[in-house]
């Protein structure tokens, strides 16, 4: 018997017993749909909880000049006047704000040549960032207090060094850096302190913010970092632009720095585990159901199976018939299940006011899942069918 004949027989059988096949397909659709739907809803819920958690856990906002390509460019912000001189004070006075500070990097706007020694014979040191920051910035990134930080609010030529920066520039990290200096663009800057508390600033040479603004003649590359009380990021973000530029809030953009990876992972694993349990139970239940339905079908077909065997069909032929029938019902049921899952997910999202998220990979998995479950569940019925004795079967009509 070839494959075409096999498929033909399977289709005829399915067509002949429409009611039974419909029930079987419905059962598979329900369980695969529920499983895929549950996984999707669990993931959607995890993402939603993440977003909610992130909103409360996040404390940092960054305010930057609005993108030059955006509609804000039409507002023609005059050079050197993005952040007014009272920007930090205005933001710090907002409720829930704990610290705020400006930063503009020299390397992003103009060449910054660093040397450890005399400008004539010293080699250039590369790989470091030269950042102009205000004293408030160090507070806003939660750096431990540095005694000489106040100097960053002036325009004196001084530097504070991160750990790696100090190493690259041959400056030993100590309590008293008096006498040490670095050459920036050919001018000696005395070292007045070290910023060893924050790995993010390790490769940074920090100079006063006002100095960088003077040197560049603009603060177009500057950003204002705002640290809020826990849960304050959302509300502060909505008013901070007006606080900085009451005249032109649209010339600024804000972004909330999300950092809640830990909480996110915890929620996702717990939900996944629950869903895996429910899914496993559903799987077992469906397979029992399929197996039962198929065994009943095989028993009712015993005379036909016996006749086929008597006419020369091999055991393997008979087993393939039953397996293919189960597999076909599995694929169709799985497809219906995918549709059902999509409906479930969208309905859940609408009811909860969430953003509907349906993973197409998960939907594609549903028919495969239905196929595998149904084929596996058909193994025992197929074995029963293959064991039908032709001599006994042809005795009774």
């Amino acid at each position, binding site marked *: 018997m070839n494959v075409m004949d096999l498929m033909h027989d399977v289709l005829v059988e399915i067509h002949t017993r429409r009611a039974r096949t419909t029930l079987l397909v419905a059962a598979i659709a329900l369980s695969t749909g529920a499983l895929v739907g549950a996984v999707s809803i669990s993931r959607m819920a995890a993402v939603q909880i993440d977003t909610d958690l992130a909103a409360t856990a996040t404390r940092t906002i960054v305010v930057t000049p609005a993108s030059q390509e955006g509609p804000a460019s039409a507002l023609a912000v005059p050079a050197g006047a993005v952040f007014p001189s009272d920007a930090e004070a205005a933001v710090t006075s907002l409720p829930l704000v704990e610290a705020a500070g400006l930063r503009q990097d020299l390397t992003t706007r103009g060449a910054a040549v660093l040397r450890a020694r005399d400008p004539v014979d010293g080699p250039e040191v590369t790989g470091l960032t030269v950042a102009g920051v205000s004293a408030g910035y160090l507070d806003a990134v939660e750096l431990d207090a540095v005694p000489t930080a106040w100097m960053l609010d002036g325009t004196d030529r001084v530097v504070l060094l991160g750990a790696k920066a100090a190493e690259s520039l041959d400056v030993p990290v100590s309590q008293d850096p008096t006498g040490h200096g670095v050459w920036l663009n050919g001018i000696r800057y005395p070292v007045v302190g070290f910023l060893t508390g924050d790995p993010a600033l390790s490769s940074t040479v920090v100079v006063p913010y006002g100095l960088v603004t003077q040197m560049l003649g603009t603060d177009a590359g500057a950003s204002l970092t705002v640290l809020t009380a826990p849960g304050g990021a959302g509300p502060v973000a909505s008013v901070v632009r007006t606080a900085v530029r009451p005249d032109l809030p649209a010339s600024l953009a804000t972004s909330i720095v999300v950092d809640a990876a830990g909480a996110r992972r915890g929620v996702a694993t717990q939900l996944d585990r629950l869903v895996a349990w429910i899914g496993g139970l559903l799987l077992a239940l469906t397979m029992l159901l399929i197996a039962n339905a198929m065994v009943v079908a095989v028993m009712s077909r015993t*005379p036909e199976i016996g006749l086929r*065997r*008597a*006419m*020369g*069909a091999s055991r393997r032929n008979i087993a393939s018939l039953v397996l293919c029938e189960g597999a076909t019902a599995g694929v169709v049921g799985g497809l219906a299940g995918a549709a059902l899952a999509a409906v479930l997910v969208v309905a859940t999202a609408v009811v909860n006011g969430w953003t509907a998220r349906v993973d197409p990979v998960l939907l594609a998995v549903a028919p495969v899942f239905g196929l595998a479950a149904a084929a596996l569940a058909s193994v025992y019925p197929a074995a029963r069918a293959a064991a039908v004795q032709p001599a006994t079967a*042809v*005795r*009774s009509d």
Partner: protein
Amino acid sequence: MSRPALEVRDVTKTYVGHPPTPVLHGVDLSVGAGERVAIFGSSGSGKSTLLNILGLLDVPTSGAYDLLGQDTCALSSSTRAKHRASALGFVFQEHHVLGARTVAENLAIKLAISGVGRRGRADLVRDALTQVGLTHRRNAPGRLLSGGEKQRLAVARAILTQPPVLLADEPTGNLDRANADNILDLFDSQARKGVAVVVITHDPTTARWADRALELDGGRLRLGAHG
């Protein structure tokens, strides 16, 4: 005489169970190609049991059975299935027509199992239906056929693939004289082509039609009174 198409020697059959049912006690039978053999006997004497053994549907408890010169006792289940598909035509005592399939489909299933390609099937089906006079019922579902029509369909199915051995368990039981004679004529034409025909019957006419009529009695075959 050339090698017989089928030959059983001292075959016994006891159905296992509590208690065991001994049915055949040493049957010897040899049927040559083109020969027509009728077997009769009282109900329960073991005629269907013997025919099932000849048709490779069942195995003897002891004894030897050669089909077309090949010893069948050592054959695997799948090889026996292959022989059933290609070497044997079987008309069952219960006709075993698939009620949900049409007359033509009932025949096509047999062709599919026997490995006949799709192209050749329509012609074979048409010929077989013409031979048994069922062409007009070609698209009727099996369940709507009369008893006699089912029997003729069963005969058509048995001769469909032109097997060298034809086994029929009461093929004329439900038929009027005219249809019964028609079936016997059909068997005659098969025998003339060299097919070995074994028919079980209660009908004296059929017994007389055969080249040899044997009676199964007490678990053994002997030349019957009809012969």
